[in-house]
């Protein structure tokens, strides 16, 4: 019966999805358990901070600048209709600090650093480097996975903050320098509307959560990848797709909790 087969297929997929979430959670707990070692050998984290954080700087800064400039342009076009161009700074700053900074930076981070992490660990597994480590009684989670995890968690809030800061200057450049919105009201209305704890710290918290989720997904997919060329390429694709969807869904939930009733 085709109907029964279709339902069985749905059930199989659901069980598989729940199973993978459970395995990823166990993997996350394992990473936390073995993190002590990687903090004792901090240069491992620093090396990973270079390849995840520093190497993502260019894409984050350029993207932040252009997102801020587009916000300035579009915000001006809309606010002009209501004669409140002076609120342009508020719009640009709140949009970046609350939403676009953490979310777009995390999406870029997932495709720039997350996919690289998955491919690297997947290939390590395919070329049996991980098995070799186990043979030498070196725990691969403590030596390879945990430093990458902490590097991702540490660099994500910094990247999001830089994205927002550069974006605000992009909005300033288009709004004040190019279009000619009053500079004083641009900054003063922004400062009056953006609250440090409500807006900036919640944005930092968001990016921290996104950083954790993206790196756990990327590392799990790499560690779990079938040790073939096809398996590694499939795992890399899954990392980008799953973590992008996870970021956007989590963002809705976090926004609903943080900014409800404001």
């Amino acid at each position, binding site marked *: 019966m085709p109907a029964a087969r279709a339902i069985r297929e749905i059930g199989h997929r659901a069980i598989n999805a729940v199973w993978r979430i459970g395995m990823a959670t166990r993997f996350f707990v394992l990473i936390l358990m073995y993190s002590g070692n990687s903090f004792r050998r901090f240069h491992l984290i620093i090396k990973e901070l*270079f390849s995840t954080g520093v190497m993502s700087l260019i894409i984050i800064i350029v993207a932040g600048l252009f997102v801020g400039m587009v916000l300035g342009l579009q915000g001006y076009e809309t606010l002009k209709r209501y004669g409140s161009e002076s609120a342009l700074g508020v719009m640009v700053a709140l949009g970046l600090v609350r939403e676009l900074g953490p979310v777009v930076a995390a999406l870029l981070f997932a495709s720039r650093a997350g996919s690289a992490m998955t491919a690297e660990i997947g290939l390590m597994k395919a070329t049996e480097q991980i098995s070799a480590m186990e043979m030498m009684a070196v725990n691969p989670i403590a030596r390879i996975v945990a430093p990458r995890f902490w590097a991702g968690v540490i660099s994500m809030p910094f990247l999001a*903050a*830089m994205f927002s800061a*550069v974006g605000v200057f992009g909005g300033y450049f288009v709004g004040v320098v190019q279009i000619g919105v009053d500079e004083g009201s641009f900054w003063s209305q922004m*400062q*009056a509307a953006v609250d440090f704890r409500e807006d900036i710290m919640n944005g930092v918290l968001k990016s921290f959560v996104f950083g954790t989720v993206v790196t756990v997904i990327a590392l799990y997919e790499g560690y779990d990848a079938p040790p073939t060329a096809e398996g590694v390429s499939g795992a890399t694709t899954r990392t980008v797709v799953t973590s992008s969807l996870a970021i956007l869904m989590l963002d809705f939930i976090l926004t609903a909790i943080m900014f409800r009733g404001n």
Partner: protein
Amino acid sequence: MERTTLDLWVGIFVVGGIAALVMLAMKVGNLGTYNVSESYQVHAYFSNIGGLKPKASIKSAGVLVGRVTDITLDMDRYEAKVLMSLDSRYHFSKDTSAKILTSGLLGEQYIGLEVGGEEEMLKSGDEMTMTQSAVVLEDLIGKFLFSKAQESAN
């Protein structure tokens, strides 16, 4: 890559990230304008606060002198009780009057203080007795229509 260059780049990255956060806090957010100096609390009753919100500014002669800390409905008088924290550098006489004003036509609402002539100064916990409520547009239009109707009847 050599260890020292690696450390340098990661150092630049971390310092840049912290600088971005500080810039967001100071230039974009309100941490730079927070009152770090000491303050004292006074309160006032308004029959209607309009759109006044906590953290709204309190100004005297246009100068920021404090912030609204809390707004509640007093159940004995059925009036809004507004708690204000004023910068202790500034002193106001006991008969200072508080008005709810609007900055610009559609701007935010704030409290404006006008100093009276009395010698004694407001202390922490005191009440400002002279208040003027927010102007509600519907009431204003209602009054205008009423007076127009009276004019045409005469």
